[in-house]
């Protein structure tokens, strides 16, 4: 397995490639992705918080926009926590697609906003259970924005957040059912 981080140097942000690689390697090992090549291609030109993923049988490509790894208190500086979370998010999404019962999930660009939210909740819940510090309320808010503001929606959020093993069919059905109840 090889793990590569690009670029080597940065024009717009004060990020460190070796530091990012150390965090990514640690996360890959923790998530059992040490048997596949991984490319981390940071898009430093963009301040957005997006993380683009591409998965083949032999290579996982994670392309975070620089905002996803940034310290929001100190613009353009790298945040260890946000880098860790971004690596975990990207790798969990890739692992779901490769080995986790998500083979039938639409491409990331084709996911509806509620579908993206339910999958993000599943991912972030697992990250929280790895004892990585994150603000759960932010993810509740995101789930509510996509499914509605009600106690029933919050109950579904809790269910997904605390799930360790789900398939795409299960998650997408939960999301669709929640939307039909709140409609």
């Amino acid at each position, binding site marked *: 397995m090889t793990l590569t981080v690009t670029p080597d140097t940065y024009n*717009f*942000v004060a990020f460190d490639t070796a530091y990012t690689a150390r965090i990514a390697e640690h996360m890959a090992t923790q998530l059992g992705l040490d048997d596949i090549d991984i490319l981390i291609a940071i898009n430093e030109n*963009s301040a957005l918080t997006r993380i683009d993923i591409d998965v083949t049988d032999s290579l996982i490509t994670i392309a975070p926009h620089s905002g996803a790894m940034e310290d929001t208190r*100190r613009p*353009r500086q790298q945040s260890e926590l946000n880098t860790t979370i971004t690596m975990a998010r990207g790798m969990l999404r890739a692992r779901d697609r490769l080995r986790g019962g998500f083979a039938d999930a639409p491409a990331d660009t084709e996911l509806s*906003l509620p579908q993206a939210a339910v999958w993000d909740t599943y991912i972030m819940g697992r990250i929280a259970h790895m004892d990585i510090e994150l*603000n759960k*309320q*932010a993810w509740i808010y995101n789930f509510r*924005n996509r499914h509605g503001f009600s106690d029933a929606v919050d109950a579904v959020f809790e269910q997904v957040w605390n799930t360790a093993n789900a398939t795409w069919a299960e998650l997408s059905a939960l999301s669709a059912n929640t939307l039909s109840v709140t409609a």
Partner: protein
Amino acid sequence: MKKFMPVEELARDERFNQITQADRMADGRVALLADSEKSRRSNRLTPARPDASEAARALMHGIFVGEIQALEGAGRTCWDFTTGEEAPFELKLDMARQAWDEARHVEISLKLSDWMGSEIGQYAENTVLFQAACSNDPVLRLAGVNRALEGLAIDVFTTMKEFGELAGDPYLEFCEDWMFADEVTHVKMGSDWLRKITENDPERRKKALEFQGIVDKMFSYGGSRSDSEESSFAIARRFRELAGFTEDENDHIADLGMQALNERKAQLREKQAAASN
């Protein structure tokens, strides 16, 4: 107690990290959607944006620190000028009422930030709002704070209220609506006092309106506010009119917003081109 406090001396605890507008504009990264995506999305802050939750959270934090600075600005106006000679008592009374409103807005924004999942100081605090409140002429301060800053607040609160409405978020919609009503009053106070104080001094009025134009352009934050769909929020023309802005003034602010957007885009193109060489 010290008068005319500079922006560097604003009291904050260790949770806050302050940046200037120059720091913000020095960032050469693109924060707008790529050209290929523009056909299907705009940059308007609506729930339809994929990053809507994060963007709304960041804006709410911006509102929170903006309310703190507006409170500080209105409070300083009560203190910095001599009653009667430099500023009428009734003007100071209005500023005291405004300070009370802003303090309430700080509390509301803080609770909304909790609700949306962010913490105090999670984002850098841009001190540009207070900088507009540092003028040593109370009329310029009214133009900068009550008309430019509070005018910006009308645009931002309209966006956030609509965001809450579209997302079905009852708290956001309700709270923004109530704060928004206060902002219209604050702008109205500024408009009324500006006319009253400069009634027989056209030169001073001209200077104040010029200053307002400069501040309005600064508050367009490199094109975040304009009539273009490329901007995060629009100019809330109807509510601005209720607050005392004329149609011509709103058109002028819209032009300044477009100018700021185009200048920022040109600046970013230059920086990105320089980086790729």
